[in-house]
């Protein structure tokens, strides 16, 4: 069955071909009686028997006999009473979307509290990451903190150190902006070689939300902060690790840095720092301190662990680059992407995400021949600064192997580099800040694999 289909390099056939003749007769006999669940089970059983195929069900597109049973036989949802309103006060995705989940990469971290979960980029649309699918990175486990007891302190080089409650912060004039957040280690497993199979694991420490909060500059000004000269801000969390990071003063002066409580129209999720986190657009996620409890203003950088010992880039000359913060221009094709299987030859809309920590995405080019020739993709609106941008481009797959890549350019003129270009400067021993062009190989049988070219 499908095993032989793969071996002969053919694309997947419509699902009836997964059944033997008897199975087909049984399915259509049952279909005639309107037993939809039986058909589902029959297909699932047929697919389960062939480990080489997807367990997913391709839909029949050819009318058989009088037509498609999915049309001819009215299903329960057309003939019965559905669920009442507010079955769930806070709704859930369809049960048929249960595969779309955050996931850990097996073996990546030895503890569950100092770990990371990856967002399922291969299944998302547009630019916003649903809050429940936003990637997580915790250093000492997450907490659900009582907002009535949470405090934010602002101290350091200022007239009067201040304390704010959540109630007070939420009374201040708020701003809402869309920004991406990317862990500095995103794609870090791929610096040396191909390591993981799907876009979720290669690029899924990336998410994008609308964040709502108060510009940090407002709070500093309220405390009579000394903003002249060379200044640095320390941000500190209230969780066990009390992570600290030094934040660039220029971003704070511009008003970009937010003390945020809102995310995608609701309060922050606990995994994202409820009730308060820092939003530092364009800068790697570790600076977006969660459970934010304190802001200190000083005249020197703070030498926090995650800016001078971790999240540093080892250069071939043995020097570590410290305080590397900006997430440089990058992109990835999410459909089709590694670990997936195309249903058939014919038309596809290649789509993916592009972003830059230095500004907005200006252009994205796509290649289907491993970077030899490129075409410029369509950018979907909105195209916002330091935010994910969705791109797409037409492609007709003729069934021959192809290597799909995307290459983004930002409004500073910076062009996303290839692995060869990046490694020529930084070597292969870094972990962080890998923004190389990603390659997905579409094989003749429709399988898509994560590959690197040399």
């Amino acid at each position, binding site marked *: 069955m499908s095993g032989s289909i793969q071996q002969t390099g053919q694309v997947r056939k419509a699902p009836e071909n997964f059944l033997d003749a008897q199975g087909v007769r049984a399915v259509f006999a049952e279909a005639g009686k309107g037993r939809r669940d039986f058909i589902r089970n029959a297909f699932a059983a047929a697919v389960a028997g062939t480990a080489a195929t997807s367990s*997913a069900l391709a839909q029949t597109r050819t009318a058989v006999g009088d037509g498609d049973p999915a049309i001819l036989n009215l299903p329960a949802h057309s003939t019965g009473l559905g669920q009442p309103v507010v079955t769930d006060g806070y709704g859930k995705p369809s049960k048929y979307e249960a595969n779309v989940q955050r996931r850990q990469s097996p073996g990546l971290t030895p503890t569950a509290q100092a770990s990371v979960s990856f967002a399922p980029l291969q299944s998302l649309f547009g630019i916003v990451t649903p809050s429940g699918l936003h990637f997580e990175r915790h250093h000492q486990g997450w907490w659900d903190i009582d907002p009535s007891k949470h405090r934010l302190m602002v101290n350091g080089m200022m007239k009067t150190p201040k304390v*704010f409650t959540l109630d007070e912060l939420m009374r201040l004039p708020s701003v809402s902006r869309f920004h991406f957040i990317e862990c500095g280690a995103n794609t870090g497993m791929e610096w040396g070689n191909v390591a993981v199979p799907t876009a979720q694991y290669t690029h899924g420490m990336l998410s994008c939300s609308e964040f709502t909060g108060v510009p940090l500059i407002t709070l500093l000004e309220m405390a009579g902060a000394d903003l002249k000269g060379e200044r640095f801000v*320390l941000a500190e969390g209230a969780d066990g690790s*009390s992570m600290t990071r030094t934040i660039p003063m220029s971003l704070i002066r511009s008003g970009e840095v937010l003390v945020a409580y809102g995310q995608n129209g609701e309060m922050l999720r606990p995994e994202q720092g409820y009730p308060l986190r820092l939003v530092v657009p364009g800068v790697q996620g570790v600076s977006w301190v969660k459970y934010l409890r304190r802001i200190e203003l000083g005249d020197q950088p703070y030498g926090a662990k995650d800016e001078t010992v971790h999240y540093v880039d080892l250069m071939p000359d043995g020097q570590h680059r*410290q305080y590397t913060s*900006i997430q440089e221009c990058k992109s990835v094709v999410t459909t089709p992407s590694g670990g997936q299987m195309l249903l058939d030859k014919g038309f*596809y809309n290649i789509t993916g995400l592009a972003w830059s920590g230095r500004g907005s995405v200006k252009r994205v080019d796509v290649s289907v021949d491993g970077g030899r020739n490129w075409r410029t993709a369509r950018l979907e609106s909105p195209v916002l600064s330091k935010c994910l941008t969705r791109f797409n481009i037409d492609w007709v797959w003729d069934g021959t192997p192809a290597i799909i890549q995307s*290459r983004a350019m930002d409004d500073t003129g910076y062009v996303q580099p290839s692995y060869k270009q990046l490694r020529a400067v930084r070597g292969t021993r870094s972990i962080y800040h890998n923004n190389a062009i990603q390659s997905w190989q579409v094989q003749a049988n429709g399988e898509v*694999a994560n590959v690197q070219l040399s």
Partner: protein
Amino acid sequence: MSSFPKRTLLVLALACGVGAAAWAQPKTAGYAGIGRDATPKEVAAWDIDVRPDFKGLPPGSGSVTRGQDLWEGKCASCHGVFGESNQVFSPIVGGTTAEDIKSGHVARLKDPAFPGRTTLMKVTSLSTVWDYVYRAMPWNQPKSLTPDDVYAVTAYMLNLGGIVPDDFTLSDKNIREVQARMPNRNGGTTAHAMWPGNELGRAAKPDVSAVACMRDCVPAASSVTQLPPHARGSHGNLADQNRLVGAQRGIATAAPAAAVKTSAPAAAAPKVPVALLEKNSCTACHGMTQKLVGPAFSDIAKKYPGQTDHLLQKIKAGSTGVWGAIPMPPQTLGDDDAKAIARWLADSAGP
């Protein structure tokens, strides 16, 4: 709220409408009543950071010997007795030499063949170690160490790295002298374009400059590397990690869940009979875990564990007064359906 000042509304409108520029508007309202002064004790309770110039370091001291005792009780389970463990977190000690202590550069960082990088190979400032141990260690009881404890365990780590002798006592008085012996104290640089501000003397230009070529850019890929076949299933069954509808499916890299279920013994707990519940309109009155018109399925299951026959009889004949005033009328579903639903309820109505 009725006396909400007009100009505050204006500030709000500006803030919402023009984003980044809004904060630069004159602060006419002054945000009266928002925030209060922090007391000195409050600032002291939270302001625990220690900078590379050791600003913020509290007075105190701790010996290598005392540090060893603390280490073995509180640190060794994760980091190993000699700070060398790689089981839970990256090793702390190892990879540095007496020559590195002189030069302030860890020579092995230039050697691609040297496996791994320890904390002492990477850290440039002793303040970073002190600060992190004080705020975040031990891992499961952060902030439980006193300043003297932190001096002691830091002294022990430095001793393991050959940076201070066995009889050393680290204190706020001598920590600068020890900083001058840190093996990689000169191994960090900020000469790059990846700090967004002008504060660190950054490089003006990114280090990698690619060109957006469009035609005949590179020769055909000479070799394509991908995951080796033995790693195909290392991230589970990719078929279960992709959407079941759309332009593509996930590749099955392990036995699909369905196969496991069909091979399970017949006595396995019945799955939620979704189709039966929908077909017979049970879900119109009963939620899975919440009361609607009638009780939640989970509540029924809790009340009648294992009582399949009783539940079957109630479904067929109807019921009144058990869960409230609204009666459940007799149901006219088929025997098979009714039995399946009753069995599922009697078996805890689980997923």
